[in-house]
């Protein structure tokens, strides 16, 4: 039995702290590549004030059904990204999540993998979900490889649902079932 859900090897899950985190979250929204990789909405930079407000609105819209984690590097406690679970369909055992590493310097170091492993454990062993769902875009090869590596299956390809840089791209949905996760290396 795993007792430490929020402590990983290199990262930990922490609550969002507006005073500490709004500044760096705002900085990430000035990077169009980051926004293109993570956001369906049109790219737009947000001031720390609006980062805080957006968080409060997300929390309010979720009516308490909101699981938001700031990813912190254990070496220096800095925020490196976020992971959140929203739209929990309790009666069906399904939920949607989003996960991102904010700075390009922190990518490709296994931090995202560690965060996803922790998030999957939280979804299946704390929330007791039947399945877990996420979404990405046709042009985000990194996310597709990342999800496939962690046992997700491509379930839906909404053709030409994204228009960016003068052409259409498919929107992709990925899913993993609890029983698939239980058999994978991530659950060990």
């Amino acid at each position, binding site marked *: 039995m795993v007792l430490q859900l929020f402590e990983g090897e290199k990262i930990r899950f922490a609550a969002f702290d507006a005073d500490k985190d709004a500044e760096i979250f705002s900085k990430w929204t000035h990077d169009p590549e980051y926004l293109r990789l993570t956001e*369906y909405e*049109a790219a737009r930079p947000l001031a720390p004030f609006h980062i805080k407000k957006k968080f409060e609105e997300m929390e309010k819209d979720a009516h308490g059904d909101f699981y938001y984690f700031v990813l912190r590097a254990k070496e220096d406690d800095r925020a490196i990204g976020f992971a959140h679970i929203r739209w929990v369909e309790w009666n069906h055992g*399904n939920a949607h999540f989003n996960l991102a590493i904010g700075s390009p310097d922190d990518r490709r170091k296994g931090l995202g993998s560690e965060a996803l492993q922790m998030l999957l454990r939280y979804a299946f062993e704390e929330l007791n979900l039947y399945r877990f769902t996420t979404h990405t875009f046709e042009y985000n090869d990194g996310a597709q490889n990342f999800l496939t590596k962690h046992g997700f299956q491509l379930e*839906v390809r*909404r*053709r*030409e649902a*994204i*228009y960016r840089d003068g052409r259409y791209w498919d929107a992709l949905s990925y899913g993993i079932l609890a029983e698939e996760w239980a058999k994978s290396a991530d659950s060990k």
Partner: protein
Amino acid sequence: MNDSLFTGKLVRLAAQDPEKDAATIATWDKDTEYTRLLAVDPVTPPQLKNKRERLERMPNPHFYSFGVRTLADDKLIGFVALLRVNHVHGDAFVGIGMGDPAYRGKGYGTDAMNLILRYAFQELNLHRVSLDAVATNARAVRSYEKCGFVLEGQTRGTEFRNGIRDNIVSMGVLREEWESKQVKS
């Protein structure tokens, strides 16, 4: 081509009147076999006040909802709505319900769907329309195929009701697919 945007072969699209239509909708929504097909949320007995408040919300550019009325006698028989309309990408979802059971399986819903697709593609200038349906709702899926929707995938085991797990099917239609269908028919 019909020159009236809101008039089809069997039905027309009309504004939903909070005063007059809420009671009809509340009557339909007592039927849980029907409401369970409309949304994943746990169903609850309808409250007239909630139905009225939903219809009272101001129209906005991300949500277009219509009443479906018969051309024969102007009877309100259902609704159809475009939701999560994203004008940046030209993408939207559609939801439809034929609340009055007497008008199911007779082409009324298909006619209403054709009308809202015309509205989506020729008035809102969207690029595509998406929908999700319970995989076992064969009548609905057949109707959507008739309107030009194609299967784009299935989320496995997402529907859990009466102790049975079913897939949710995702379907979509692109403007060019819909347009080429209009020329043929």
